[in-house]
């Protein structure tokens, strides 16, 4: 214990004194978040999703005027209309699917319009402060209603159809909420693997490993010390990512107890993996190359930036054996969807992987040279 704490405290001291390591530990996650946040929040607004539920259905067939209204919505070329079955409970549907905008045409729409009576359609949206796209959608619907009214009454005013606005107040998630856990997972992986590999090869080159091998320090103690140090580094990166997410991108999700356990497990597993890699490399250059070869594919194949569903089948098979996949899935399940049982499964996978690598590392690491 005394030996392990000496390793961790010493490493932290050096980290704190090395100005550029200190800077990059903090700046790297900030840059990542800003970069990916900017890229993905723009691409999202190309086509605006709108869920539409037409409840004015008789015998399974939409009524004349309600269908006419839906057809107009479809022709805007701004809105991407998703029809929702009239049998669904709208409130429940929004909550489950994380729907951001939904238009509901109540039953009786057709008869009211035919009779020239006033009728409301309900537009449920997340507030403009949460998603600026809501304002655009609102404008588009306003115009469609205006045209519709003109068509129906052949003069304006009076209005037949009016819009009743409702806020979607349940927790809603934006893309940032999806990718923030991905960035956390990716950072834990890269900083863990690279950190452990670099720390090991550097100390090998300085002769410090050789020196330590002549003391009673055991390999396991050394590996645990390095992994614990990298755990602190991972925790710092995670905190920075969440802070940037909250301040700049209005990130809604905050880690709960499961995601904290997951983050700790991930921050142990990847340095453990790094220690195993470090066993097989001699110089710093080849160490970087080896760490790159392992982290780079994993970064893209484990769903850090986009959901695994977007990938072809054979890549998904590969993703299934990558530890980062489980960290990403687990973090999303616990932070975004609040799915505890899935988070539990992913946590145990990651923790198992971590313990496996640490034990493997201490078995294959040889301080004795041939």
């Amino acid at each position, binding site marked *: 214990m*005394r*030996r392990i*704490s*000496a390793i961790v405290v*010493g490493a932290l*001291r*050096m980290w704190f*004194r*090395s100005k550029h390591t200190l800077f990059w530990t903090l700046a790297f996650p900030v840059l990542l978040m800003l970069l990916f946040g900017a890229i993905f929040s723009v691409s999202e607004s190309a086509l605006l999703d709108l869920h539409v539920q037409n409840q004015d259905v008789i015998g399974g067939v939409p009524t004349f005027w309600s269908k006419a209204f839906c057809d107009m919505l479809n022709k805007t070329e701004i809105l991407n209309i998703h029809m929702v079955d009239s049998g669904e409970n709208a409130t429940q549907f929004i909550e489950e699917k994380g729907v951001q905008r939904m238009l509901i045409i109540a039953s009786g729409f057709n008869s009211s319009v035919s009779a020239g009576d006033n009728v409301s359609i309900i537009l449920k949206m997340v507030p403009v402060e949460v998603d600026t796209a809501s304002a655009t959608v609102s404008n588009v619907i306003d115009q469609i209603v205006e045209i519709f009214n003109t068509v129906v009454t052949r003069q304006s005013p009076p209005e037949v159809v009016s819009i009743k606005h409702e806020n979607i107040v349940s927790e809603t998630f934006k893309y940032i909420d999806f990718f923030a856990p991905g960035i956390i997972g990716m950072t834990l992986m890269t900083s863990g693997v690279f950190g452990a590999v670099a720390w090991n090869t550097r100390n090998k080159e*300085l*002769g*410090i490993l*050789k*020196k*330590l*091998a*002549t*003391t*009673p*320090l055991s390999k396991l103690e050394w590996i645990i010390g390095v992994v614990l140090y990298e755990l602190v580094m991972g925790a710092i990166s995670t905190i920075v990512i969440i802070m940037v997410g909250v301040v700049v991108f209005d990130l809604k999700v905050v880690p709960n107890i499961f995601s904290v356990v997951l983050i700790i497990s991930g921050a142990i597993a990847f340095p453990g993996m790094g220690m195993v890699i470090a066993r097989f490399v001699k110089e710093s250059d080849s160490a970087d190359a080896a760490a790159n070869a392992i982290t780079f594919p994993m970064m893209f194949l484990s769903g850090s930036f986009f959901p695994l569903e977007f990938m072809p089948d054979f890549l998904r098979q590969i993703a299934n054996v990558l530890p980062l996949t489980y960290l990403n899935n687990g973090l999303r399940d616990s932070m975004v969807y609040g799915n505890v049982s899935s988070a539990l499964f992913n946590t145990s996978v990651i923790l198992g992987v971590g313990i496996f690598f640490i034990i493997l590392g201490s078995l294959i690491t040889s*301080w*004795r*040279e*041939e």
Partner: protein
Amino acid sequence: MQKEIAIEVNSLVKKYGDLAAVDDISFTVHKGEVFAFVGPNGAGKTTTVEILVCLRNPTSGDARILGFDINERKGQQEIRKRVGVLPQDFNTFDLLTVKENLSYYKKMFDDGMDVDELIELVDLKDKTNALYKKLSGGLKKRLAIATALVNDPEVVFLDEPTTGLDPRARRDMWNLIQGLKEKGKTIFLTTHYMDEAEVLADTVAIINYGKIIAMESPNKLISKHGGKTVLIVEEGGKAVYDSLSRRLSDVRLENDGDVLATIKKKTDLPDAILALNKNKAEFAELTVRRPTLEDVFLNLTGKKIVEGELH
């Protein structure tokens, strides 16, 4: 009285393929002794040290450090507790201070020297809170030696402790090593500097191509293999040559006018001086050159060591 044995090596061999880096060496180091392993780079010095401090397995042969077997797991654990090691080309953590570096290594052991006392011992008190990277080469080496003393070891292995140091820093290091000897430490030293071994060592083992080719106290080595003392009369010329030739059997006149007379028996030197005085000989300088370990190495191998390499 028979001194206690600190290091005992029997028929140690380390082979890499067909090449024997250490080729059947045996020796004994007594407690409190400074034992120097002298030889050019690649002679097998570091390999031997690394086998003795349990960093490498020997191909065959055995060794005991303070009675503990290097080939046994239990023995290795005991050896690690009791020896201090300065590996070759060792550099410690750049961004830790002198004191922090020493505390770091000290914590790897169950007990040892007080760190402040140790800093005083290696004369780094002014630099206690200086970062390692800010130290000069000589001071870095002093800290490195201190890291080998944190556990207050009975046996200290110093693998080329002065390589790369300037002459002044080397002398400092010699004083430090002599100080350790006075404290009763057994010191196993490797070096390719002959003068260093001559000054520091009680016993010198000359190693070349993995084999020990001579092993004794520096004085005995020199008297056995170093050749004779030579009297040099600089710019003595023909007159001096003639007068010395009459009394001494082996006198040479060099092209530059220097006269070299080999001293073969006790009376040769006084005789020669008397002759020079009597004849009122004219010369620039009179020097007596005693053979050194360098001559021993040259006579034994036919080669010189320059910058660690054979020439």
